[in-house]
């Protein structure tokens, strides 16, 4: 049905795609996998005729034998939404905030002249029921819906005219793991029932392995391997496919270096936010973000904290860093109380690495100044050559060159920036490092190397990690113990392997069941490095 052959694409002269060929059959789920910048989204936008300005395309993009590149813009408009529907990654911003969801679904019908507004709203009701939003009135606005619900509205609008092909570009990347599982199930059902094909674009091998009939693996604008899913997964003919698999399942080498020395003691901590200000004198209802959490972190231990967005894990992290006060309970580090007024000497013992490798640095500072910033905590910070040496040592510890200290952050890749963030966390020689989604924004291959680095540093420097993540598989590879958080409370705690193999709490069980997994038989080889 869809036939892309020898597609080349350059934008403003910069080559993006090279010789991309693939075909999608009737009622087929085709998975397009690759890391960021591999060109998978651009392939889809080329098919939709929605490439950004300055795009130079050659090759053939055919739907049922018609080359879409020969169609006029008006003909493409008639085709979009009608023959090919598309949904995107970010459901929070994909809908018009000032229009009701009913109108936005109905618009697909009215714009193609398939129904009057009244009839279109009736059909929109039916489509919203179909995607599992039967309980939502048509006159709701997007801001009244959760992320998962919004993605369902997008799907309803995309399938309103029963398109032949639905393109889903990272449809679940911005969603929590349980919501992701529901959306993926919905897409699978729709393909079966609506006589429709699906082009599923994702960075997550586990997602496609579970969904797709056939997959193509993309790297640097080229398809390096494609075929039937089980075949590609089993044979892994191309080295990049193998590398991608190894990285997805990567297990960093770890040593058991913890002792019984308790460094951090969190007891019955409660963190409440006052409600949003509604005027000079009034506030909304207060919000309890962390509700009675207790745990201990020992020297050399790696403790995982998992939960979905909004469960309070990042709030807890900020309280442990002494950035925010707690309303009840206590946090003690090295036997001293932690809070906004804690002395600098105590602060220097607990440092942090954040998620976003782009927002973590003041773009106007050089790396040397960035890494040295925590020296502010020391009563007598090192000066001159001493200071430069310390920064150089920190860079060497994270396998960067000491010469990098003279560069600006934008000169580094995402993975390198995360190394710089780790170097900054190490500069005061802390005992505890809080890693708040520290590898979540990275591509799998980069993530694997950062996990190796973290593991190595932990062994060499006897660091204690509080490893906060929504990603269960990563937490499993890097932690000794794990806490599972749900709506501000710890619902389950225990040794990582035990919690993962024998979860007790229903929420933990649901989380583990929802997480997409690579087939067991394929992943045996990559565990070989486990000690």
């Amino acid at each position, binding site marked *: 049905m869809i036939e892309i052959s020898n597609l080349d694409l350059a934008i403003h002269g910069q080559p993006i795609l090279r010789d991309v060929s693939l075909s999608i059959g009737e009622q087929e789920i085709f998975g397009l996998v690759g890391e960021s910048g591999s060109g998978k989204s651009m392939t889809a936008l080329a098919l939709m005729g929605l490439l950004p300005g300055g795009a130079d395309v050659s090759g053939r993009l055919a739907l049922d034998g018609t080359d879409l590149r020969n169609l006029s813009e008006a003909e493409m408009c008639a085709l979009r939404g009608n023959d090919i529907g598309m949904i995107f990654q970010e459901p929070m911003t994909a809908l018009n905030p000032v229009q009701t969801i009913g109108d936005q679904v109905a618009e697909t019908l009215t714009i193609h002249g398939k129904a009057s507004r009244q009839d279109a709203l009736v059909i929109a009701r039916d489509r919203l029921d179909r995607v599992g939003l039967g309980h939502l009135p048509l006159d709701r606005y997007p801001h009244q819906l959760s992320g998962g619900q919004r993605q369902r509205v997008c799907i309803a609008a995309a399938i309103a005219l029963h398109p032949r092909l639905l393109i889903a570009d990272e449809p679940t990347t911005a969603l929590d793991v349980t919501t992701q599982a529901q959306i993926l199930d919905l897409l699978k059902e729709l393909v079966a029932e609506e006589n429709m094909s699906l082009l599923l674009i994702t960075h997550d091998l586990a997602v496609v392995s579970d969904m797709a009939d056939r997959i193509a693996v993309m790297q640097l604008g080229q398809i390096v391997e494609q075929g039937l899913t089980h075949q590609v997964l089993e044979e892994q003919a191309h080295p990049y496919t193998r590398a991608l698999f190894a990285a997805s399942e990567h297990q960093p080498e770890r040593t058991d270096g913890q002792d019984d020395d308790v460094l951090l003691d969190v007891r019955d901590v409660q963190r409440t936010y006052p409600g949003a*200000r509604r005027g000079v004198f009034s506030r909304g209802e207060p919000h309890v973000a962390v509700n009675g959490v207790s745990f201990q972190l020992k020297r050399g231990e790696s403790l995982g904290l998992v939960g979905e967005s909004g469960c309070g894990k990042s709030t807890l992290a900020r309280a442990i*860093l*002494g950035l925010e006060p707690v309303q009840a309970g206590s946090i003690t580090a090295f036997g001293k109380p932690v809070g906004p007024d804690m002395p600098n000497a105590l602060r220097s013992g607990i440092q*942090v690495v954040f998620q976003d490798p782009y927002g*973590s640095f*003041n773009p106007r500072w050089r790396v040397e100044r960035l890494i040295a910033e925590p020296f502010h905590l020391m009563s007598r910070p090192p000066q001159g050559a001493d200071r430069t040496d310390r920064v150089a040592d920190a860079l060497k510890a994270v396998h960067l060159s000491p010469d990098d200290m003279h560069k600006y952050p934008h000169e580094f890749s995402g993975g390198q920036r995360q190394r710089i*963030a780790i170097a*900054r966390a190490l500069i005061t020689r802390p005992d505890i490092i809080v890693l708040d989604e520290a590898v979540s924004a990275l591509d799998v291959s980069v993530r694997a190397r950062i996990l190796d680095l973290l593991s190595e540093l932990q062994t060499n420097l006897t660091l204690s990690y509080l490893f906060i993540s929504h990603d269960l598989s990563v937490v499993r590879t890097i932690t000794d113990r794990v806490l599972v958080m749900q709506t501000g409370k710890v619902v389950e705690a225990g040794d990582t392997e035990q919690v993962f193999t024998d979860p007790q709490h229903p929420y933990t069980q649901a989380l583990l069941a929802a997480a997409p997994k690579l087939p067991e038989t394929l992943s045996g080889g990559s565990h070989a490095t486990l000690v």
Partner: protein
Amino acid sequence: MTRLPKALWIGAILSAVFLAIALLSLIWTPHDVETLTIADRLQPASATYLLGTDQFGRDTLSMLMVGSQTSIAVAVVAVGIGVAVGVPLGLAAAASRGSLLDEVIMRGNDLIFAFPSLVIAILITARYGPSATNAILAIGIFNIPVFARVARGGALPLWTLDYILAARTAGKGAVRISAEHILPNILNLLIVQATIQFSLGILAEAALSYVGLGAQPPTPSWGRTLAEAQTMIYTHPMLAVLPGLAIVLMVLGLNLLGDGLRDALDPRLRRART
């Protein structure tokens, strides 16, 4: 895209020319503007008087040159007041987002917006009589909430960034973070806003002087020259046209400079280009 640098250049050149003229007029003008040569009144353009003379026989070109001093001086001080008071207020509001302080600062801003600079000038003048100082005060006070808003608006998204959290884990307080991390990163916005307020200041000064609430005789001002020329608009229209053109060109130059700077300094655009 070649249009953007061009606008920046035209704006920068126009602004620089007016600044140079104002500086030059401090030490030299073609004719003295303080002596009235009644014999030479209302002369047409000639080799002696390049742009003619006014009803008191003063050289129009010299009057325009000296008038630029008042415009620039009033606008500079008014922008200075707005920056010096407004930016710290905006930074403080952003640093304490959602607190009572933030609320009070922002409501105070709303309040000042209810007093257009003309109304402030009217109030001050009604009680203390007109002067250039009053014009500066009136325009400057109105600039405060403008800069407070721009500073707060630019600072708020920065406060959510991880590097601010990192600075806080490095033990730095709100004042230090505002100075080290926030201010340098909103400087672009402030510079662009300053050029806009500078041009608005020139327009406001001209308007206030035109209605007699600004610079008083003998201080020359484009606005007052216009007011004096209005009575002779039927017989000598050029006397009213020329000071207006001077205002338009200078404001146009500043606006082009501001727009050009905005495009050149906008990090989003810059990132797209590299």
